[in-house]
């Protein structure tokens, strides 16, 4: 009994640390299964990446979290209680496919969306003015949406998503249509919102931005959750003992010396200072000692570091593995 109480107390605490818990959620449409018993936990105050190939079921999952569609079975917990329609004002969702009313003026339209989220006209106007200044678009207030470019409209959509300061923000491909400068502005704002305490769910195919922004990810493929975990852990776990070695000395001789130790060797190049860089695949993690000793004996080592796999590689490897072996159970961390 005592144990049970401790257990539930702990579970509650863990639960409170997650803003969203998805428990065995399934959703089927006439011709296909969009989600099949998908579970995941989104920790509070983090940026959470929701990844997956096209048609994997990400958007359906996001719509369920956003209370737009209901799951066939399973449960979604928001902030410690079952998700209800009353939680929607605490969520800001920027859908992947998004548009604005073309004939409406920008300011009027932003106000309309802000008020739909339950903000008063007065608060919404004040908050909007602030955001418009922050993103340097104050001069657009009285323009019609049809006069804006796609990127400009995206900025307005971003503002109406975050304006009401929701606890949970969901961004589906937020950077599409942005130039690199504005994309950076947006990244900065997203991280700023996280620092202020918001949790961000971030769905994208841009793996570089996942590495940059996300603390945790979940990879969904063919309606299953096939990989979940903190980005740093995953990259370490997927590391295949690949290292980069930089040295000064006779490259041919060094390569001949270390060849028996390494599994695979690629020359990355020699720079002007005579430093040669090699990409080396080792058979095991502890082979690095022997490698360093050998290399040290015949050259001057300038650099040695581990190369972690990119999220791109992890994505491709995991999805391909799961496609070739669809009965495989999801690896847990």
């Amino acid at each position: 009994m005592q144990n049970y109480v401790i257990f539930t107390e702990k579970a509650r605490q863990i639960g409170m640390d997650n803003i969203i818990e998805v428990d065995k959620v399934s959703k089927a449409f006439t011709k296909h299964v969009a989600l099949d018993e998908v579970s995941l936990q989104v920790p509070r105050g983090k940026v959470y990446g929701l990844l997956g190939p096209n048609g994997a079921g990400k958007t359906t999952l996001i719509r369920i979290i956003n209370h737009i569609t209901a799951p066939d079975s399973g449960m979604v917990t928001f902030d410690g209680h079952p998700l209800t329609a009353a939680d929607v004002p605490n969520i800001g969702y920027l859908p992947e496919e998004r548009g604005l009313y073309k004939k409406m003026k920008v300011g009027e339209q932003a106000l309309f969306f802000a008020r739909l989220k339950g903000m008063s006209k007065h608060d919404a106007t004040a908050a909007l003015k602030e955001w418009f200044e922050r993103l340097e678009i104050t001069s657009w207030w009285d323009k019609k949406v049809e006069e804006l470019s796609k990127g400009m409209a995206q900025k307005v959509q971003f503002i109406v998503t975050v304006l009401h300061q929701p606890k949970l923000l969901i961004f589906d491909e937020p950077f599409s249509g942005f130039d690199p400068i504005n994309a950076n502005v947006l990244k900065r704002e997203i991280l700023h919102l996280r620092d202020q305490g918001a949790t961000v769910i971030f769905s994208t195919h841009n793996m570089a931005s996942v590495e940059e922004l996300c603390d945790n990810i979940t990879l969904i493929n063919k309606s299953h959750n096939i990989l979940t975990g903190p980005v740093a852990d995953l990259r370490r776990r997927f590391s295949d003992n690949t290292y980069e070695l930089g040295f000064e000395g006779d490259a041919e001789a060094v390569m001949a010396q270390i060849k028996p130790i390494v599994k695979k060797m690629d020359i990355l190049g020699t720079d002007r200072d005579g430093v040669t860089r090699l990409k080396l695949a080792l058979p095991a993690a502890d082979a690095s000692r022997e490698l360093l000793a050998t290399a040290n004996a015949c050259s001057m080592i300038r650099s040695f570091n581990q190369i972690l796999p990119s999220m791109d590689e992890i994505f491709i490897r995991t999805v391909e593995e799961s496609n070739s072996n669809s009965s495989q159970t999801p690896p847990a961390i």
Partner: protein
Amino acid sequence: MNPLKIIIAREYLERVKRKSFIISTILMPLLMVGMMVTPALIAILSGPEERTIAVIDDSGVLAPTLQNDGEVTFRDFTGDLADAKANEDYDAILVIGADVVSNPQGNVALYTRGAPSMQTESYITSQLERTIEGLRIKAYNIENLAQIMDEVKVSLTLNTFRIDKEEESATSSMLSYALGMATMFILYMFILLYGQMVMTSIIEEKNNRVLELVVSSVKPTYLMMGKILGIGFVAITQILIWAVLLVACSIWLMPVLMNAAADSADPSFIQAMSQLGDTGFMVMLFGCLVLFLIGGYLFYSSIYAAIGSAVDNIQDASQLQTIAIVPIIIALVISTTVVNDPNSSLAVWCSIIPFTSPMVMMARLPFGIPGWETIVSLVVLYLSFIAMIWLSAKIYRVGIFMYGKKPSFAELIRWARYK
């Protein structure tokens, strides 16, 4: 503020502020008046062309009595039919047999170049009939017979009264017919016009993906309801503007018409005018028009909303639209027959079925029908609207996220069953 109100307000203001709304509100009455006046004008301006008709009269008694009018000129022709046919001066040849007075049937013939005009034909026959009648009466050789015959002739107008009502009231079926058809047409126009407006507006929202952003903050059902109600308020605004215009016009026009009625010897016209002047009747009629208009609009626009949510563009909508258009057209056709017999069982049944009831009831109402029928019809209509909007909301919720393939009717029903 309730999100539904915000959506309604946006929808309403966006439309009412548009130039197209203001223009159509002004132009529509002009167009209606134009549509009524133009055929009459055309008829007046394009009377029959002038025709010269050669008359070959073997009886010798009829030709002199034929009278020319502006369009038709008769000319005696001596010679046979072949000569007359050869003569291009004549547009037609009238051949009258020798014993036409005793045996008129089949004894008169008209040969024309081109198609004969109905007016000319009836002009000739009526003249000949009258003359032959006169000649035959004369043949009886009774003194003053022509005068007696004139005195015997009667022209009658029926004064009709309703006895099933508390108060015997003079009615004019001519006016009822006109009012029924007019209000029914207004209803038909509004349902079709505004129902389709709901559909196109939903398709547009779906197409430019603004819908995805809206449903991220409010339930899809709210958006659909907001759209239907917002556009409904636009329709009511338009009708109220027209009502005000109509009242203003009639205040100015009624005295003129009343004077005309008083001067007129035509009793049916006087009756019609007194019925039009009956304020209670007109208020009842307008009240029912508004109630059926709202009910019919809500019912049909929910169907249109479901259709709009299911397709990506207007082209794809045409096929599914038949679900809404066919019953509307059927209702229109039934309404035009119902005015001839407002209490037939077809009329009563179609007044209860919600697909046809708004229009059929409007066509019947001016004839005065039992109050309970109106109430049953309205209750069924509004209950069906609730059922229909519930079904449509279920389809809409799924449909708005479906892109690509054009769905079939069966698929729409399947969507309604999704959780």
